[in-house]
């Protein structure tokens, strides 16, 4: 016998496991983590989230505490330093910039994520229904989306903010009103091809209720593409909110967002408080970059078109 008896007996001891198949999601995960920029960006995003949630614990000052001893001398006494506890310096009215950046990042992230969630829920259901029912219903529903899309929404939103008062709540309502439009179009387009697949035919033939077909059979198959576009939607919503806050029409004092902080920094840069501009811009740019890269990575991993 040429076989090594020992090795064979060892082999016998190995418990026979069922061969584990790789699910589509595991495949996608592997593809995502192979993309270095996307993986790094994911960790940056996690760090930003932790910063927004717990960064306040490290702050030496409350975000609305005004240091009156610095008034008139913020430009040289409010320089960023570890010793004074103002890690990012102070703003022009003597408030701790670090604490404000923590809050600004948090609000900007929240606006993006909440807006994207609204888009996912409303847009997916709307688009999937339009695509699934087709015909006249589809025509009316998508015309409605077209009409909403052709209105310059920033102007209408500002009109609304003026009339109903400037508040975070109105901002969320405004963002919720527009964020789902693109998603509805994408979901509809995908649904058109899904509804001709055999499993949907089977469901129809066995008499499943149309709403149930949409929820159980169509929507789960849209999930990949919806996640990709939701991730890419977040940065554009953050930009949208920052734009309004930059104009002073969005988030109101004492609350703040990255857009509002950039605006304050832009007013102060000629008086030498350059850090008040640079720190918010740095956080803004890093956030947007990270979301774009993660979105791109997810698209490569999940979008069946580019495989």
């Amino acid at each position: 016998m040429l076989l090594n008896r020992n090795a064979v007996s060892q082999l016998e001891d190995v418990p026979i496991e069922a061969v584990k198949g790789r699910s589509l999601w595991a495949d996608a995960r592997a593809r995502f983590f192979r993309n270095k920029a996307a993986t790094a960006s994911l960790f940056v995003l996690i760090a930003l989230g932790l910063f927004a949630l717990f960064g306040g614990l490290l702050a030496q000052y409350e975000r609305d505490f005004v240091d009156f001893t610095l008034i008139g001398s913020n430009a040289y006494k409010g320089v960023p330093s570890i010793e004074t506890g103002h890690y990012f310096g102070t703003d022009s009215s003597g408030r701790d910039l670090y604490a404000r950046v923590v809050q600004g990042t948090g609000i900007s992230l929240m606006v993006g994520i909440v807006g994207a969630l609204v888009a996912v829920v409303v847009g997916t259901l709307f688009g999937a229904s339009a695509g699934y029912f087709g015909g006249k219903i589809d025509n009316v529903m998508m015309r409605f989306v077209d009409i909403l899309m052709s209105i310059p929404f920033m102007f209408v939103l500002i009109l609304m903010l003026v009339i109903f008062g400037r508040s975070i709540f109105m901002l969320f309502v405004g963002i919720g009103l527009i964020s789902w439009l693109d998603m509805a179009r994408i979901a509809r387009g995908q649904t058109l091809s899904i509804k001709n697949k055999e499993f949907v035919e089977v469901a129809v033939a066995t008499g499943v209720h149309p709403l149930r077909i949409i929820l159980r059979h169509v929507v789960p198959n849209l999930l990949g593409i919806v996640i990709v576009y939701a991730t890419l939607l977040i940065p554009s919503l953050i930009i949208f909110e920052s734009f309004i806050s930059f104009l002073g029409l969005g988030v109101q004092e004492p609350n703040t967002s990255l857009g509002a902080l950039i605006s304050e920094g832009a007013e102060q840069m000629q008086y030498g408080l350059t850090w008040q501009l640079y720190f918010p811009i740095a956080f803004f740019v890093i956030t947007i970059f990270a979301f774009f890269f993660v979105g791109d990575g997810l698209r490569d991993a999940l979008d069946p078109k580019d495989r």
Partner: protein
Amino acid sequence: MLGYILRRLAIAIPVLLILVVLSFILMYTAPGGPFNSDRPLPPEVMANIEAKYGLDQPFWKQIATYVWNVTTQFDFGPSFQYKNRTVNDIIAQGFPVTLTYGFWSFVIAVTFGISLGVAAAIRQNTWLDYTAVGISIGAQVLPNFVMAPLLIMFFTLYLGWLPGGGWEGGQWNYVILPVTALATSYMASIARITRSSMLEVLNTNFIRTAQAKGLPKQQIIVRHAMKPTLMPVLSYLGPAFVGMITGSVLIDVFFSTGGIGQYFVNSAFNRDYSVIMGITILVGALTIMFNLVVDLLYAWIDPKIRY
């Protein structure tokens, strides 16, 4: 073709009417009129003012008068805040400014964006390609409200080359910074779209046929590849136009150029409804007309579209 234009107009006009009616209803339901100030006026004076602006009329009469004046005479009524000035005066004063730098931004974004994208696609995977891709990825995270302060920081405060605000009748050195701030991120997007579209077109069969026939490369690009390349770019121009006209609000405010955006935001803070509505409707009309032109161009370029 004529039928197609008429059908598109038949959709565009109701959309505009909806916009007019909707913004009027929003304004009508607003709590607190434009003349409610901290010191309440005597009731007789108030009644007089309301009679002057027609605010004492019943709702249906007010809205009918407004819609009639807007649609037949382009008359948006008097401004509530600036005495003795109508909304038309304000638009006539501010709009040429916005139009000037908006036009240049659009032209620069389109020409530079397309050239950069085409150049990158033709010389794929050379330093030129990498530079173009780098620029377009970098500029993606620099929306106008980030570009504007950074440009002023560098060119006005640090180098002292260009003025950081004002208009002075549109002298070239006052125009450069607003145009750059407004155009950059759209140029980047157009370059990215053009590049990927051109790469896709260059891989098609008819381009291979043209190469096999021995046509010079230049001719292939200009005569055969350019037209299909431009189609996705064309469909991006609609959103880009909306984005720029929205961005002009911020440019006007930040650079104090005196365009309509500055009046818009001022009115937003002072609850000068008639100005806000007038500008919103004007922008809505421009957007809808621009989208119409893009659609017609699209139908003209793409032989697959039946109208």
